[in-house]
């Protein structure tokens, strides 16, 4: 059995992430970590006047899966409405990643979506979180 979860695209995205950075005055922003491994992701979103994602950026620290997933997710939601973001299915993100994942790694893969939805639902910051960089 080989490490086939690391297909080309994942490694490319890990090295050259999409939408990496910050937004000034975002409409919402949220950060969370996976407490069992220390992966952390922050997502900033700016909406247009129709409540569609006008701009999205993320920062974070973690494994190739969680970081590639953030690139893929942020790319995918551009132009989507807030309601579509709230309803974004986990399966869809796992499909975009497109490699078989174990239970522990599914959590890595879905961290970005968890963060995005928490922000979209307006959940307050849960603790004293902070990117370790």
């Amino acid at each position, binding site marked *: *059995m080989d490490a086939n979860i*690391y297909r080309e695209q994942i*490694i490319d995205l890990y090295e050259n992430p999409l939408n990496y950075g910050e937004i000034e005055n975002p409409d919402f922003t949220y950060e969370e970590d996976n407490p069992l*491994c*220390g992966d*952390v992701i922050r997502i900033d979103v700016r909406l247009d006047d129709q409540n569609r994602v006008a701009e999205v950026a993320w920062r974070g620290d*973690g*494994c*190739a*899966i969680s970081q590639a997933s953030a690139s893929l997710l942020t790319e995918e939601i551009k132009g989507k409405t807030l309601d579509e973001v709230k309803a974004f299915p986990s399966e869809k993100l796992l499909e975009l990643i497109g490699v078989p994942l174990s239970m522990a790694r599914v959590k890595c893969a879905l961290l970005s979506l968890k963060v995005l939805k928490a922000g979209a639902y307006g959940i307050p910051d849960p603790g004293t979180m902070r990117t370790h960089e």
Partner: protein
Amino acid sequence: MYDVERIRDDFPILKTEVYPGVPLVYLDSAASSQKPLTVIRAMDDYYEHYHANVHRGVHRLSELATTEYEAAREKIARFVNAPEIEQIIYVGNATEGFNLVAYAWGRANIGSGDEILLTELEHHANIVPWQILAEEKGATLRYLPILDDGTLAIERLGEFLTERTKLFSFTAASNVAGTITPVRELVDAAHSVGALAMVDAAQLAPHMPVDVQAMDCDFLAFSSHKMCGPTGIGILYGKRHLLETMPPFMSGGDMIRRVTFDGFVPNDLPWKFEAGTPRIAEAVGLGAAIDYLSSLGMDAVHEHERAVTDYAFEALSDIPGIRIIGPLGSQRGGLISFTLAGLHPHDIAEILDKKGIAIRAGHHCAMPLHQRLGLSATARASFYVHTTFEEIDQLTAALHHARSVFKLK
């Protein structure tokens, strides 16, 4: 002679294939060790032939169960050279040992303005219970710093140990940096300012001889599951006068001498701290683990791990982009934590797993230490009685392979 191949035969799990055709290379003993067959069989024997509740029974099975439960305590007392058997308290894991001391000793003895000294090396088990206690009592936590090589800044002890210090609780062996600390020196320093000293032996007891009298520590805790024993049990050792004057922690059956509707009288040591039906099979299993380790000899175990660790240190040092955490040589226990530039520890662990190699990635329950090191995670390979040089070669090769998967030059 230490015959590692014969020892490997004692561990059934080492014959497991993790994936079809991929045998297990278990380099995660610091998280939890594997169990020799004798330990598994001792618990089977208990359940199949003499399981019963202990202490309160007249009948034969209860008598046998009580005898074995207490015989295990005696083995453990001998293993750590405790002066008296009653100083060995069964708890759920090392973590519960710290909680017991924080609740029962700490709440009676720590007050506003007091200080508790820890170190930057500590595992969460030796941090969070003190944070809760300090918060409740208005006490202050301080952390003895480490140097960049992961050893303690011993020369700064004078700044951190003051007459306000009531307790110095520190690890004897770090589960991340591997650092072995000079326990007796630290205990003496604590005592010199009138503080008590508690030792985290979770990563020491499995790997080296432990002598609580030579250490002169006031409390010491460790876990069965890291030293060939079952899950669900750990040990707290304490000095007798402390254990005797402490109030109970958990209460209920067994830990009492007498109960009325109006109050209770606690039982004698050690049962005063063991409430309810105890961890009977687990004590029997731990007793068998102690027998097993004693049959190998803790000096021989330590020597074997030293050889394996030195070999691994050298082999890993050659990998491009590696950063090894912690000190060299004699100050290091049997584990190596590291990072590889351009490869997240999780991805390393994942790639190694597919080759059957089990290592751990993450903060290893030592987030503050990782912050201090400027890292969010490390990869850790840890070694035990059954680790071979060939397994280290497989580890090294797999790390090179991981770099190539990530196209690192």
